[in-house]
């Protein structure tokens, strides 16, 4: 059999193992190892396995992931995220669907300190779902909103997906973060409009909340001052060139810790629990990356990526159509695969085409994030939907999936806007030298 055929069999077996419930990280590593052993020799494959694991686990560029995840879990444990939500609620609760709009905005706010969609969804789900239930908000709307708005976590900086993308294509992570700001705001706006339209069409979905006085509004706002400072320090520090991404994450985590201690929100137990929670999430992400690296080494010696890239690159169609094909491939892939794993596996394959066609690296990163956001909420594999299901076990899965469809439409519209107006992504980074 030719290396290409072996490679195709490898991909099919990997998808099969995914389907049969093997954790995606292990399935990629396992198939990658077996494939490499078959195409090269078992001895080298075994050595490469050990090298890959040790090198990825001790990779300095990857250390940014555990640091930002830790910042997110400390921010949650320190009550920073709850206060962000409370402030949004105080300002917007009186609106029809105001609580849902507040949730979208709170997600956007939390997204500004947390780089992961599932962490954003989990955090906001824990805070917002009980509140929405209390006020008789429609549960399909509520869960769908949080699952979808949680995806803002990877578009509004910091973003684990953009970090991984930046490492894979050797692009400045700082610039990628800045590129995510305007599209992130646009998408937040699109989600707000979606909620408003839904509630306007069917008022029973979301009864208005109590009105608050100006002094209540202002008092609640003082509660998020330290969150704003933390954001300015970590992201501003990145923006102004004080820190590397890893350092920004560590300073952010340290800052959240100090806020928690200062407000007496953290005791030893909460502190350790938050640390462990972050550690487990970081472990999951780094295992996926390592699995993808092992699988990638197998793919590299099958020559498939190069052939596939040649094929798509040689399609006799307009570059924008090629981009359309690429986006569609990601969209389909997102049905079945975790967005992060999908990106790690495919970017090295598709990135040369993107370069070849002279698309902007940073713009493409933002597009990839938008498509990845669709992937985490679309059935059958929608990680965010599972996270919400974990928080609200009484809501049937199909209801949550039904709830996300209007938001999926909003995501698609924003993606199309970005394809035709790339400046939304590229303008801000162009200001940074």
């Amino acid at each position, binding site marked *: 059999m030719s290396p290409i055929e072996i490679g195709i069999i490898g991909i099919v077996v990997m998808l099969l193992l995914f389907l049969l419930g*093997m*954790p995606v990280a292990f399935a990629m590593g396992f198939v990658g190892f077996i494939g490499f052993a078959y195409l090269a020799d078992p001895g080298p494959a*075994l050595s490469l*396995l050990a090298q890959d694991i040790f090198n990825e686990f001790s990779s300095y560029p990857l250390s940014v992931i*555990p640091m930002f995840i830790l910042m997110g879990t400390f921010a949650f444990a320190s009550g920073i995220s709850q206060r962000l939500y409370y402030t949004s609620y105080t300002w917007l609760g009186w609106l029809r669907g105001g609580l849902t709009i507040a949730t979208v905005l709170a997600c956007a706010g939390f997204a500004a300190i947390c780089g992961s969609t599932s962490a954003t969804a989990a955090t906001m789900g824990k805070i917002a779902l009980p509140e929405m239930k209390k006020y008789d908000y429609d549960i399909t709307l509520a869960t769908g909103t949080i699952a979808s708005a949680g995806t803002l976590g990877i578009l509004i900086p910091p973003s684990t997906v953009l970090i991984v993308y930046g490492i894979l294509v050797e692009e400045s992570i700082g610039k990628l973060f800045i590129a995510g700001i305007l599209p992130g705001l646009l998408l937040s706006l699109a989600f707000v409009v979606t909620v408003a339209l839904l509630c306007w069409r069917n008022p029973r979905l979301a009864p208005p909340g109590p009105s608050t006085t100006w002094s209540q509004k202002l008092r609640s706002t003082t509660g998020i001052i330290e969150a704003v400072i933390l954001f300015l320090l970590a992201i501003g520090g990145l923006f102004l060139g004080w820190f590397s991404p890893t*350092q920004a994450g560590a300073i952010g985590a*340290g800052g959240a810790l100090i806020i928690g201690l200062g407000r007496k929100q953290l005791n030893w137990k909460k502190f350790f629990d938050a640390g462990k929670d972050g550690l487990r999430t970081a472990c999951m992400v780094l295992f996926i990356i390592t699995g993808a690296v092992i699988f990638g080494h197998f793919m590299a010696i099958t020559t498939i990526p190069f052939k596939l890239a040649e094929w798509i690159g040689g399609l006799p169609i307009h570059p924008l159509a090629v981009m359309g094909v690429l986006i569609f491939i990601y969209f389909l892939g997102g049905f079945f695969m975790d967005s992060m794993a999908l990106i790690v596996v495919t970017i090295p394959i598709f990135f040369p085409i993107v370069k070849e066609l002279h698309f902007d690296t940073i713009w493409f990163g933002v597009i990839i994030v938008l498509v990845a956001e669709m992937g985490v909420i679309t059935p059958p594999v929608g990680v965010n939907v599972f996270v919400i299901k974990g928080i609200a076990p009484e809501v049937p899965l199909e209801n949550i999936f039904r709830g996300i469809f209007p938001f999926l439409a909003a995501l698609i519209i924003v993606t199309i806007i970005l394809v035709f107006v790339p400046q939304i992504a590229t303008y801000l980074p162009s200001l940074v030298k």
Partner: protein
Amino acid sequence: MGFLEKFNRFNRRISSWFEWVGLMGLLLMMFITCIDVIGAKLFLKPVLGAIDIVMLSQAVAISFVAASALLLGRHVHVEFFVVLLPKRVRAVVDSVVLIFGLGFFILIVWRLAILGSYFRSGAEVSASARIPLFPFAYGVAAASIPVCLIFIHDLINAILRVVKK
């Protein structure tokens, strides 16, 4: 209490101990980076070997929490398909997947131990702080042992589900 239950409790306890080791690694990453940044920005006194320490602490952090993350089902996996299968078929599928996972992690334990010996015989050290690398490769190997134990437990469990009337 049956053997399987005892085995499970043992796995939980050892995973939880290992998780504490991992947590210390993660916190060390954060603290050393903060000290390095503050030292370098405010006092012109960076920490020699800060990057080495972050890298090696990360290897400890990630490998030592792997067992606990597995027990808690934190590794992303696809569920929708297997839940559609009849119980017996599902037990067979689980057994096969668990055998692959177990085999994979046995290889990891074995080869990281070998990598550790290779680092030791070659006297390889980290690039600035000159910390020997071999204990960390041995550490990743050791941290993968409870993962194997968890797979063995789940495998026995799955096989029992296959043969059960």
